[in-house]
């Protein structure tokens, strides 16, 4: 069974689109993360959904949040698909379907490709699942608005300085130099 809300997502170790072995925990590295499984490059529904994630990456890239995509496609195919999409996050490859079995995400209705069930998980930095979305039917997938809400909820929960640190009125120095670059 795929992990559901409140459960631990397994710390998968798979090759990435460049062929290097990566662990999910190292890719997450302390940030809220969207993990997405998809059928493969050939599926129009996956192409449509990944194009939405490409739009979202313009926000994710400045928000200390990450995306990881997983399929059964091998690295060379995955790298070509990723480049065509214009995606700048890591894609993981599971051509031996080891992680697919571990996650219980074999799409049994497709006996030709035996792909992943399309699914989306929003994760806390410790890989605990915040929300799980079953994308077998396209409308089961999260909208970008829902992903933004999930990223906000996780970020609020894990960043101790979610409420902006501001000086108390008694210590405000109007002449003090602002320390640049510390805005999250």
């Amino acid at each position: 069974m795929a992990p559901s809300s409140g459960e631990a997502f397994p710390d998968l170790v798979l090759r990435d689109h460049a062929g290097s072995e990566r662990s999910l925990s190292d890719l997450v590295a302390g940030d809220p993360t969207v993990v997405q499984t998809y059928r493969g490059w050939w599926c129009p529904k996956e192409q449509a959904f990944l194009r939405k994630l490409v739009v979202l990456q313009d926000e994710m890239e400045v928000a200390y949040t990450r995306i990881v995509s997983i399929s059964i496609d091998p690295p060379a195919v995955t790298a070509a698909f990723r480049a065509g999409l214009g995606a700048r996050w890591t894609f993981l490859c599971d051509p031996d379907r080891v992680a697919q079995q571990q996650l219980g995400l074999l799409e049994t209705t497709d006996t030709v490709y035996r792909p992943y069930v399309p699914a989306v998980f929003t994760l806390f930095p410790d890989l605990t699942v915040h929300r799980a979305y079953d994308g077998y039917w396209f409308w089961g997938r999260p909208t970008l608005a829902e992903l933004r809400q999930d990223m906000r909820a996780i970020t609020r929960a894990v960043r101790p300085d979610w409420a902006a640190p501001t000086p108390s009125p008694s210590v405000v120095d109007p002449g003090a130099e602002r320390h640049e670059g510390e805005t999250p």
Partner: protein
Amino acid sequence: MSLSWHWLALVDERPDDATAAAPVHGADGAPAGFLAIWARRAKPLPAARRIDARLLDREGAEACISLVRPPPGVRLLFDDLAVQHARRAVLAALPLDAVTTLLSDASHFEGSLTVARGDGVARLADDPFARIFPARLLRVGAGVVGRLAAPAGPVIERYGSAQPWPQDRFAVAR
């Protein structure tokens, strides 16, 4: 806690106090000094710049590098759109052995160092940071720079303004 950045400089003489150093040669084979890294908090030389600490590898093999540096007197904000786009271009491409931006303070882009070996060497000529400032293609001896896991992406921001990108996590939970 280990340091998240080290100091790097290209110098004429091998520094006695560097953590690692190796001779550097230009594309024509001519000596071009020494690439040195210092693993310490205090700045060792005025010309030294911060790098992602993970680049240091005293077991690292000989490598080709693209060293991008601003011309004398030129300064560019790290948040400049050109620097943002260069970071995106790095993430979009297949990874090379290692990359780091160079910093001297919390605000300015002071160049970059990209490391390649094998088939990746030819791609150094397309270093995205070389679209911003001039790049020198050099060969550095063994014992200085290693191979890093590629940046996870899509984050292009620094994890604290003092951290050279792509150092990829906050030093403490926040």
